[in-house]
């Protein structure tokens, strides 16, 4: 899928959770949202991108969330 679009969508999610006063809450919020609403191939592609490009252009908060909760984002099929 269009990586640019996926990054944009992920960053949008990040900007919502950014306002949370507690960062832990924000990180789990972002990861959980991706888990609940992103189809596995979208998540896989995002994870691959993070690994390959070191999360370039991804909002730092989102990146932290992905890294902190990577296991939530891995497709169960892959897992």
């Amino acid at each position, binding site marked *: *899928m*269009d990586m640019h*679009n996926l990054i*944009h*969508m992920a960053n*949008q*999610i990040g*900007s*919502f959770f*950014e*306002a*949370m*006063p507690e960062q832990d809450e924000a990180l789990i919020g972002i990861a959980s*949202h991706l*888990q*609940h*609403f*992103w*189809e*596995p*191939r*979208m998540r896989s592609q995002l994870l691959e991108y993070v690994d390959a490009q070191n999360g370039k252009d991804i909002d730092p908060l989102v990146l932290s969330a992905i890294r902190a909760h990577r296991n939530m984002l891995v*497709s*169960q*099929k892959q897992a």
Partner: protein
Amino acid sequence: MKGSEVVRMVPDKNGQANEGHSCVKGRFAWGYATHKDRILKPMIRGKITDPWKEVSWDEALDYAAAEFRRIQKKYGRDSIGGIVSSRCTNEEGYLVQKLVRTAFGNNNVDTCARVCHSPTGYGLKQTLGESAGTQTFKSVEHSDVIMVIGANPTDAHPVFASRMKKRLLNGAKLIVIDPRHIDLVRSPHVRADFHLPLKPGTNVAMLSSIAHVIVTEGLLATDFIAQRCEDKAFQQWRDFVALPENSPEAMQEITGVPAELVRGAARLYATGGNAAIYYGLGVTEHAQGSTAVMGIANLAMATGNIGREGVGVNPLRGQNNVQGSCDIGSFPHELPGYRHVSDSTTRHLFEQAWGVEIQPEPGLRIPNMFDAALDGSFMGMYCQGEDIVQSDPNTQHVTAALSAMECIVVQDIFMNETAMYAHVFLPGSSFLEKDGTFTNAERRISRVRKVMPPKAVYADWEVTVLLAQRMGYTMDYAHPSEIMDEIARLTPTFHGVSYEKLDQLGSIQWPCNDEAPLGTPTMHIDHFVRGKGKFIITKYVATDEKVTRKFPLILTTGRILSQYNVGAQTRRTENVQWHQQDILEIHPHDAEERGIRDGGWVGIHSRSGETVLRAKVSERMQPGVVYTTFHFPESGANVITTENSDWATNCPEYKVTAVQVMPVLESSDWQKKYTRFSKVQDDLLKNAGEGTGNKTPDIKIKAVAKSIA
């Protein structure tokens, strides 16, 4: 009725949603059901440049099933999916998602509610615990203050608008938050006490500044909050909205609305008695659509305006069965009753009932399907009653995606825009030809009753059953009532619903179960569905769709009274006499600056594309904002709109597109291409020949890779 011919359609005095009233569409515009454009024979073709071939139902269904199987074999189980329209019945929607989850074996099912009210589902679920409006329409009779946000009820929800006006005439106060000077702002005997003409895309800023006034001026319903809401979340929210950056004064530059107006409206909402919020797609169809919905729920909780008559949070829906299509599980992440597919208890319940294994992870949402199609991983689609080409944003993107797919099965009553990209056409049935139920914005389930036999032999639900069968999954229903029985059995909020009860009561507002055997007109009375109400921080984030020197105006789109959605139905009635084409409304100042005259042709272009419409110079607009509708395919309003979408649900940002508008002399390139393409497709349809009996047609399995537009 005269035999099986409709003589006239009249609103039912006992209709609990409309109480004997109707609008021009429901009352008169039903002639499309028997329009000569109806396609009554199944058709197939190998590629979209081939002529259509009329075939038997068997042949068409066999072909579709074989194609789907072939695609899945080649590209994987997740390479096909289904889309069902919110115009279809609950039973049809339920069967489509069941088809996808059983016969297709994945969760790639979505509904057109995706592109209108998905943020409502998300936002209200997060805050209040249920993805639905809180009130019954009748409740407005008890409102003292009515706040209308991003909705134009007199055009888009005329029957409810009349009830709202009735209440306004009897003294309720009115706050309108809308970029446009809509009729409710001022029309005979109606005058908004406050009109906050905000800039498109700044709803969240506006809602936060209203909340700021309520919090900082001591207008909170403290007892209600203490008893009914999560304390910690409330405190976090309160501290957030109280920040100076959320004050109306600070937000003034963003929203464009004078702070004093905002303060006045906030005070009225918080202290004017029973205050109800009604909102529409002007709230949801934004990059921050879900955030705005949560912001609205926050306001209602903060002022205690929830859980009784005359108050609440009330989404005005986009189509007749938007609520229903969401309720019955046609979202890729949810099973019926808004239960996430990852919830194993629910999954097991359905697995037992359906006898298949259900995937525990969400499927593709409509925009994701397009992306995946262009990516080569999503190649087949069953599309029931939905015209994604016309209704979804960034038309070129959509048509490119469709062109990339190998088998598109469209089921519709007309050869719609999407069907021009289809390989299999299955004739649909109009609401007059089938039994079923619709669920409206007030969670009211009402019966659709067959008044004439399906013109193409099968009702839509039967076609889905037949397709499932071809795909190797047996569905066994003698009547749609049995489908509803199954929904009721498997969905706690529907446990008490049956056709028998619907016949008895006329209609039922869910939840309807042992606790509420007669249904639930008002929700969240003693406690929220999620237990305690949850305030959620809603930070304003400007959309990426910003005005620039190149695109200095903002386009916002909407509807008009006489036309319905993509217009497939209403364009085929005399309703065109009121609205023959989509037009671009523009403020006199902007028109003057560009040398645009009333009625002249104007080109509108955005970073997505360009189209040409006639201009209407109108003071309903604020300077800097232009407006059009999307009822006519040749207008191509969605050629302009971008694939920007709501962060949470991917609901497209139809309401904000940066554009430039200039006088032009001829139609746009897209329109020229569109005209050529339509002409070709028309010819392919006109030349549709009889199929070759049982012989599989000579179909080359080859993706048509190039986008037409």
